[in-house]
C-alpha cells in the first residue's frame, strides 16, 4: 500500500463508529452472500450409499436418488428424506427454508407468528420471514452497490467534462441535466414497468438513467473551481496531458465531495428499490424483496412481526452504510489527517491569518 493509502486506512480505523460499522456490515453482508448455506430448502450436502452429493450447487432429480419422478427432488418431502436416510445422512442448513419455500405443513391462519420453527414468523404466503430478510438483504445491497457504481461513473465523467471544459459544453450539459432531472422519475419507472416485466438488470438500468445526476453538480463545481488553480497551470507548464491533469490534479479534489454523496446515493438506491417493490413495480415475484415484505406487513397489520423485522433490517442496513460512508469521507480529507491542534487553531483565527 502507498503511504497515502496507509494513512487513509489508519484514519478510517481511527473512526471507531465507522470501523465497527464496517465490521458489522461486512459480517452481515458476508453471511448473506452465503445465504444458501444458512437458509435453504435443500441440504448443503448428503451422503447416500457412500456417495457425497451437494444439492446447494447441483440439481438432482428424484430418480437419481432412487425415487420415481423425473423432476427435481424435494428434499423436504418425507418420501425423499426417507430415501436418503435409508442409506446415509443429510447436512441441513440452520434454517430449512429458502425465501420462496412455502411451508405447507403449517396450520392456517397465515401469516403465523414467530416460533421455534419460523424464528421471525412467516408472511402471508407462509414463507419464512428470516429467509426472506436474509436473501432480500443480499439482493438490496448488491443492487445498491451496482447502481451506486454506475451512477458514480457516469455522474463523475459528465460533471468532470462539463466543469473542466466549461463554456458551451457546460451550458448545454447543464440544460440537458436540468430537463432530464425534471422528468417525474417514479411515473416513468411505473410506466416502464407496465411495459416490460422488470428483471434485476432491467431495473438497474432504468434507475441508473436517473440517479447519475446527483453527482454532476458537485463534481462540476469542483472542476470549475479547480481548473484555473495554479497547480493545474503548473502541471500544464510541465507538459502534462489534459486528461492526466483532470485525473491526477482535479479529480482527487472532487473525490471528497463525491465520496460524501456516495453513501447517500447507495442508501437512496436501496430505498428506491424497496419503494418500487412495495408498490409492486419492482423485482419479479420470485425474487426476495424487503419492499414486498413491507407491503405484506401493511396488508397484515395484525401480524406486527413482519413489519418489525423488515423495518429493523432496513434501518440497520441504512444506518451502518451511512456510518461507513462518513468515516470514508473523513479519511480522504487530508486536512484532518494531521491530528494536530495547530490546524484547529489556524482555522479558528479570523481570516485564517496567524497574525
Amino acid at each position, binding site marked *: 500500500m502507498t*503511504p*497515502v493509502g496507509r494513512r487513509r486506512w489508519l484514519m478510517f480505523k481511527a473512526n471507531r463508529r465507522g470501523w465497527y460499522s464496517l465490521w458489522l456490515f461486512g459480517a452481515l453482508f458476508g453471511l448473506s452472500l452465503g445465504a444458501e448455506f444458512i437458509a435453504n430448502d435443500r441440504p448443503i450436502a448428503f451422503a447416500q450409499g457412500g456417495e457425497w452429493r451437494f444439492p446447494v450447487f447441483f440439481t438432482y432429480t428424484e430418480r437419481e436418488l432412487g425415487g420415481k419422478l423425473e423432476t427435481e427432488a424435494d428434499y423436504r418431502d418425507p418420501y425423499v428424506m426417507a430415501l436418503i436416510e435409508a442409506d446415509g445422512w443429510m447436512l441441513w442448513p440452520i434454517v430449512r427454508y429458502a425465501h420462496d419455500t412455502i411451508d405447507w405443513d403449517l396450520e392456517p391462519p397465515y401469516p403465523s407468528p414467530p416460533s421455534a420453527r419460523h424464528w421471525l414468523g412467516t408472511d402471508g404466503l407462509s414463507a419464512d420471514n428470516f429467509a426472506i430478510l436474509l436473501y432480500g438483504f443480499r439482493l438490496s445491497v448488491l443492487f445498491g452497490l451496482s447502481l451506486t457504481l454506475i451512477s458514480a461513473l457516469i455522474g463523475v465523467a459528465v460533471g468532470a467534462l462539463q466543469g473542466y471544459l466549461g463554456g458551451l459544453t457546460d451550458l448545454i450539459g447543464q440544460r440537458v441535466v436540468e430537463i432530464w432531472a425534471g422528468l417525474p422519475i417514479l411515473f416513468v419507472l411505473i410506466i416502464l414497468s407496465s411495459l416490460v416485466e422488470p428483471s434485476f438488470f432491467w431495473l438497474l438500468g432504468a434507475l441508473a438513467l436517473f440517479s447519475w445526476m446527483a453527482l454532476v453538480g458537485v463534481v462540476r463545481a469542483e472542476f470549475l473551481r479547480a481548473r484555473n*488553480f*495554479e*497547480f493545474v*497551470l*503548473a*502541471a*500544464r*507548464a*510541465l*507538459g*502534462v*496531458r489534459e486528461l492526466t491533469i483532470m485525473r*491526477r*490534479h482535479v479529480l*482527487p*479534489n472532487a473525490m471528497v465531495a463525491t465520496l460524501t454523496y456516495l453513501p447517500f446515493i447507495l442508501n437512496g438506491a436501496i430505498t428506491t428499490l424497496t419503494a418500487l417493490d412495495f408498490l409492486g413495480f419492482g423485482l419479479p415475484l420470485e425474487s426476495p424483496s424487503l419492499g414486498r415484505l413491507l407491503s405484506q406487513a401493511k396488508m397484515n397489520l395484525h401480524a406486527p412481526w413482519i413489519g418489525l423485522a423488515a423495518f429493523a433490517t432496513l434501518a440497520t442496513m441504512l444506518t451502518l452504510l451511512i456510518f461507513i460512508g462518513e468515516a470514508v469521507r473523513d479519511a480522504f480529507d*487530508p*486536512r484532518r*489527517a*494531521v491530528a494536530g*491542534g*495547530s490546524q*484547529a*487553531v489556524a482555522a*479558528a*483565527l*479570523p*481570516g485564517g*491569518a*496567524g*497574525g
Partner: protein
Amino acid sequence: MAEPFLSVRDLWVRFGAIDAVRGASFDVGQGETVALVGESGSGKSVSALSALQLLPYPRASHPRGSVRIGGREMIGAHAALLRAVRGGEVSMIFQEPMTSLNPLHSVARQIGETLITHRRMTRKAARRRTLELLERVHLNDAEQRLNAYPHELSGGQRQRVMIAMALANEPRLLIADEPTTALDVTIQARILALLRELQTEMGMGLLLISHDLGIVRQMADRLYVMTGGEIVESGSRQQVFEQPRHAYTQRLLAAEPSGAPVPAQPAAETLLRLKEFNVSYAQGKGWLGRRRQRPAVRNLDLDVAAGQTLGVVGESGSGKTTLGLGLLRLIRSQGAIEFRGRALHERKGSALVAERRHLQIVFQDPFGSLSPRLSVQRIVEEGLRVHEPGMTPAQRAARVGEALQEVGLEPEHMERYPHEFSGGQRQRICIARALALRPEFLVLDEPTSALDRTVQAQIVDLLRALQARHGLTYLFISHDLNVVRALAHHLVVMKDGEIVEQGRAEAVFNAPRTQYTRELMAAAGLRPVGVK
C-alpha cells in the same frame, strides 16, 4: 501618570492546548502610533483581536492577563459593554478589503448602518455624515460613490471605505491589522499617508499590526516586536531600528533582501526573444455581438539574455503575470516567441510539450500551486513522468531527492503532503518541481511576495545560488523592487501592458527616467542614487 487608553498586561491566549500568546504586555496612548511587528504566526493579530474580545470563544481562552480600555476591564466584560466599545470607542480595519465589506450593500448603507445603530441618527442625517466621512478619507467622487457596491470599487477605494466606516463613530483608538498588505505598492503609500493625516487630525491612538518593517519605520512612534507569542523587544522607533537588542529583531532587520545579482557573463547570447507580443482577454459578449478584447500585454519586444535575470516590475494589472503565462504558452497570445532561435509560437501538440521541459514556472502562492492531495514526491516527479517515460521509479525517486536537496529540503520529506510544510518550504517544493526537469529558463512570478521577510531573503539567496550553479535564466516578476534589485541584471518596468522603461538594472535604479518608476521605488523605500 494616567493610564494609557489601551493597556494590555500579561495577556495569554490559549487555543485548545496551544498558547498562541504568552504574557504579552503593551500600551497605546491617545494620539500615538504603536506597531506590533512580527511574522505570520507570531500572535500579533490574536493579541489585537483579544483587545476587543473578538476571538472565537470559548475555543479561545485567556488563562491569565488583563486588557483595559479606558480604564475598564475587557476580559469577561458584559456583552453590552463590549458592544459599546467595539465600533464606538475602538474601531478596527482589516487586511482584506475585498471580504471585509458586505458585497450586497451599497457604500452608503454599510457606513450608515453603524451611525444609525450606534448614534440613533435618522437616515437622512446618516447619509449626510457618510458623505462627509467619504470626503474626509479622500474618496474621489464621493457623492457618486455613495450608491456604489464594493465590487465597483478598486482595492484602494475599498480600503478607504473601510477606514471611513471605522471612523464613523470617531473612535479614540483605531486598530489596523495589516491595512495595506493586500494593496498595490503605490496605493499603500497613499493609504498610509491618509491614516497618518486622520490620526493627527482626530487625535486617536493607532495600533498598527504589520509584518512590513518598511511601513512600521514610516509610521510608528513606538513598536513591539513579537515572535512565537511573546513580545521580545519594545521601544521607540529609533531605539529598535538603530540599536536592536534582541537577536530576533536583529535577524528581522537584517532580513531585507540584499546582495547583488550573480555576476553575469559579459557576452551572453539571447535565450528568449519576444517580438510584437500581444495577449488579450475576452471581455464579455453581447447578444450576437463579437467578443470585445481587452489587451493585457501590448506589442512587446523583449530579449532575455542566457544565464541572466530579467526583472519585470509594475503594479498589479500592469500585465506582468500575463506576460509570464503568455510566453510559456499557457494562455493564448499573438506574436513571436523565439527560444534558442526556435519558434515556440508555432509549436503545437507534442512538439510544444517537448519544449516545455526547458521552460518552467514558479508561482506566487505557495499554497495554491501545489496539489493538496499529492505527496511531495508525486508533485516533483510529475514532469519526469511526462518527459522521461523511460525512467524507473527508483531513478525518478533519486532525481526527486536530488531536486529537493538542491532547494534545501530533506529528501526524506518526499512522502509528506504540502500542508505539512511552511510557506517558505512550499515555495522550495515549487522550485524543486520546476528544477526536476533541469530547465534552462524559469519564470518566477512573484515567488517571494506571499512569504515572511526572513523567508523572502532565504528564497532570494536560494534562487541566486541556483542561478550561479546551473547558469539558469530567470524572468523575475515582482512588484517589490527590493527583491528585484537583489536578483535582476536587466529591468523592465511595465504599466498597462506596455513597457515604460527598460535597461540595465543598476542604470534604472540609479537614474529612473519615469515618474512611475520613481513611485514604485519610493514605495519600496528605495531612493535613486543619482538623483538628489
